[in-house]
């Protein structure tokens, strides 16, 4: 991390701040009759960490695959670095770093060899590739595992190696599809630390995740998608403020409490044996429930992205 750090980034300074790194207008992807991505528009600016959230089947991965030039859009405009994904896939991919959802490291090679072979796909000279491999193994805390075959790595190490691999070509845009999927809390925190470091170096990052806490921590801006459409777009804190309220009152649900809430004219939702109430004066609501409504447990908690997410996409299970 120290000293070698400047080699790990890609330097957003090259990019004029006025031009988006990724721009989608009315982007559509059809699979037969299924509208996997249904007329979405968004722009990602240099240096931004931009998140795609949504339940399974929302169209997040499909959108990323179109940005990566591996899945052609059905209609609409999509440009990366100002180039059309349909016309310049090789030029665009030259400057992309991709972390796929599924671990696809090369099991026939060691950690270091994985990076070297991957660097060769980018036409990086062998000498430079060796230097970069060492820097990246160090940055990802994998130096000790350099000569270990892939099967000897833990899940967290594999994800870190994939991130190292994604950085081997000094990308100008990182595309991460669920970078921390299946990791234990320790491994996830280490991954976050690395992504934060990359972010602070000015890297532009796109990511999808099911971990809303992760999105809240990492993303400058995000969209929540469902059924191929973008439902909302904004900064995590703003979205929480406008869709969930900064604070939420939770109480044990009883007919008495519900009657009280109705009387106060408060918007509320019942989930199992709990009721959530939304108000711009959450503490007053909580006090009144506690004092006058014969309530059991009542507490006020901070609104989260999860409240926004569940509020917008519903609680129905997606499979």
């Amino acid at each position, binding site marked *: 991390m120290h000293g070698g750090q400047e080699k790990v980034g890609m330097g957003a300074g090259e990019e004029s701040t006025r031009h988006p790194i990724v721009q989608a207008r009315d982007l559509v992807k059809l699979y037969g009759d299924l509208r996997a991505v249904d007329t979405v528009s968004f722009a990602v600016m240099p240096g931004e960490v931009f998140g795609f959230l949504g339940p399974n089947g929302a169209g997040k991965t499909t959108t990323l695959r179109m940005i990566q030039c591996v899945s052609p859009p059905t209609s609409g405009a999509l440009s990366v670095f100002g180039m059309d994904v349909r016309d310049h896939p090789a030029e665009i991919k030259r400057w992309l770093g991709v972390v796929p959802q*599924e671990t696809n490291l090369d099991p026939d090679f060691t950690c270091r060899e994985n990076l070297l072979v*991957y660097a060769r796909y980018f*036409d990086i000279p062998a000498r430079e590739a060796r230097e970069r491999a060492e820097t990246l193994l160090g940055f990802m805390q994998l130096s000790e595992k350099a000569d270990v075959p892939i099967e000897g790595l833990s899940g967290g190490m594999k994800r870190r190696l994939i991130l190292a691999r994604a950085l081997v070509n000094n990308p100008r845009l990182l595309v991460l599809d669920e970078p921390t999927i299946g990791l234990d809390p320790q491994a996830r925190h280490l991954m976050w630390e690395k992504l934060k470091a990359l972010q602070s170096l000015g890297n532009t990052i796109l990511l999808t995740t099911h971990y809303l806490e992760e999105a809240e921590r990492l993303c400058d801006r995000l969209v929540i998608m469902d059924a191929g459409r973008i439902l909302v777009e904004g900064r995590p804190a703003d979205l929480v403020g406008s869709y969930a309220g900064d604070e939420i009152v939770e109480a044990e649900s009883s007919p008495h409490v519900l009657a009280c809430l109705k009387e106060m004219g408060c918007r509320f939702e019942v989930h199992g044996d709990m009721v959530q109430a939304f108000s711009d004066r959450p503490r007053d609501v909580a006090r009144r429930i506690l004092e006058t409504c014969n309530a059991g447990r009542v507490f006020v908690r901070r609104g989260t992205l999860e409240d926004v997410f569940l509020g917008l996409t519903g609680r129905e299970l997606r499979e």
Partner: protein
Amino acid sequence: MSRSLHLPTRLAWKVWQRNRDVFFKTYLVNFLPPFIEPLLYLLALGYGLGMFVGEIDGVPYASFIAPALLAISMMNSSFFECTYSSFVRMYYQKAYDAMVATPLSIEDVIAGELLWGATRSLIYASSMLVVLVAFGVVSLPSSLLVVPFSFLAGLLFSCIAMCFTAVSPSIDTLNYPSFLFITPMFLFSGTFFPISVLPGPVQAFATAALPLAQVVTVTRSLTLASISPPIFFYSLAWIAAVCTVLSLVSIRLMRRRLVV
């Protein structure tokens, strides 16, 4: 639309290099079969069975089957590389997904795989040739032409294999071409007995259309140093033409399967 015209570029060699690197990591395992296999066949069939057969068309039986052993080795080494091994890389290891996330296109990836299949054929046939030369069952120097030819023959079977791989729903369904196509070809392509003993229609079909029959014809002409121009050049042209067509078809089928 110009966007639909996709051809491989020089980047295909990056994929070839990747496969080469893996091959030489385990070279001891990889190099043993091409030396052991011809030895077994030569001893069992060439000298064992050959005791009863004597000569075919004035050629000692061991010398008759020597080119067939080379041709079969070209077929097996490339066909099985571009079916089972390629399927594992594509489907289980997701190696193609990892590669197309770089400047490589799917055309580069498949072309690299085909070139590697052809190279495997060259490596195996050349190693085997050393053994056959040692036994004195092939003529020199004409047999040396088997080395470049084995690359072309390997490319042929790689392309055929890749077409099957591109349409195979699972690794198990690759057993169909292996047992219904490769095994009969192994037996009925003029390998262990001349095609001329087969019934008329089968003979005509084998001579005109079976890929291995073409490869056996060319290889046998080279190892026996006796070229009969019309048949030799028909087989050579057949191989070149089918290679050209099927390389494009296999790449096209793979794009249809993987780029969605």
